[in-house]
């Protein structure tokens, strides 16, 4: 699945734990995994 993100920062949490950016290419997802994908947005 591709999200089409073009930014420098995609922030990923897997099963409640943050995923280190350096490990993005190595983490294998399993059935039932809960993912949160976030990014920096405008804010004060």
């Amino acid at each position, binding site marked *: 699945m591709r999200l089409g993100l073009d930014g420098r*920062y*995609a*922030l990923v949490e897997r099963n409640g734990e943050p995923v280190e950016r350096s490990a993005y290419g190595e983490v294998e997802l399993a059935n039932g995994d809960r993912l949160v*994908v*976030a990014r920096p947005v*405008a*804010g004060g």
Partner: protein
Amino acid sequence: MDERLTIAGRSFGSRLILGTGKYDSFETMRDAVLASGAAMVTVAVRRIEFGDPGEDITSYLPADVLLLPNTSGCETAEEAVRTARLARAGGLPDWIKLEVIPDPRYLLPDPVETLRAAEELVADGFTVLPYMLPDPVLAKKLEDAGCATVMPLAAPIGSGRGLKLRDAIRIMIEQAEVPVVVDAGLGAPSHAAESMEMGADAVLANTAIARADDPVAMAGAFRLAVEAGRTAHLAGIIEEQPTAVPSSPLEGRV
């Protein structure tokens, strides 16, 4: 004159920190950041909408500006710590503007949860800049917990009402051993100037610039105000007097 701001050993060429929210476009936000001279800008962290990820704000920001992620939207210490760790793991700096705000009407920060989150984040290696009510006692506790700054609100976020809590902020400035950054509620450059004249180390502005008719021009005005206020503070502002004090000599009058 001491023109540079130093936080946690890092030096910044500007004492104006900008929030990136509420601009009509990222282009205007970028131009305002450049006009402000800010060396640090805040960003929020939000979930991506699958199928519509939107534009990447970071691609609009100058590369030499420090991104300061915030924990806006967090109502508890646990939520704030989770957001900070998510941001850092994803490659954002390990600096965090800590906001724990359970009250949606006035957006006032929770002092107990803020302190709890600050202790945990400092222990985890973060450089913590906590947004807080201007409470000198809480400020000392946050400082003792290892926070890099204290960031008292001048007035409720986005209200533009200026330094409504100046007396408490003045005490914080007098007592603080870390930089004091006046954050939130500033509506005009004069509010920023007054903060700096009082001895604040920096100010953070967002709505006053982003919602101005001309945000880029207003960013420049805030830049000048911060510089003027800082210079005035260092130059030594005279004490107020209860009565008039003549500027011309009384002797030798014709």
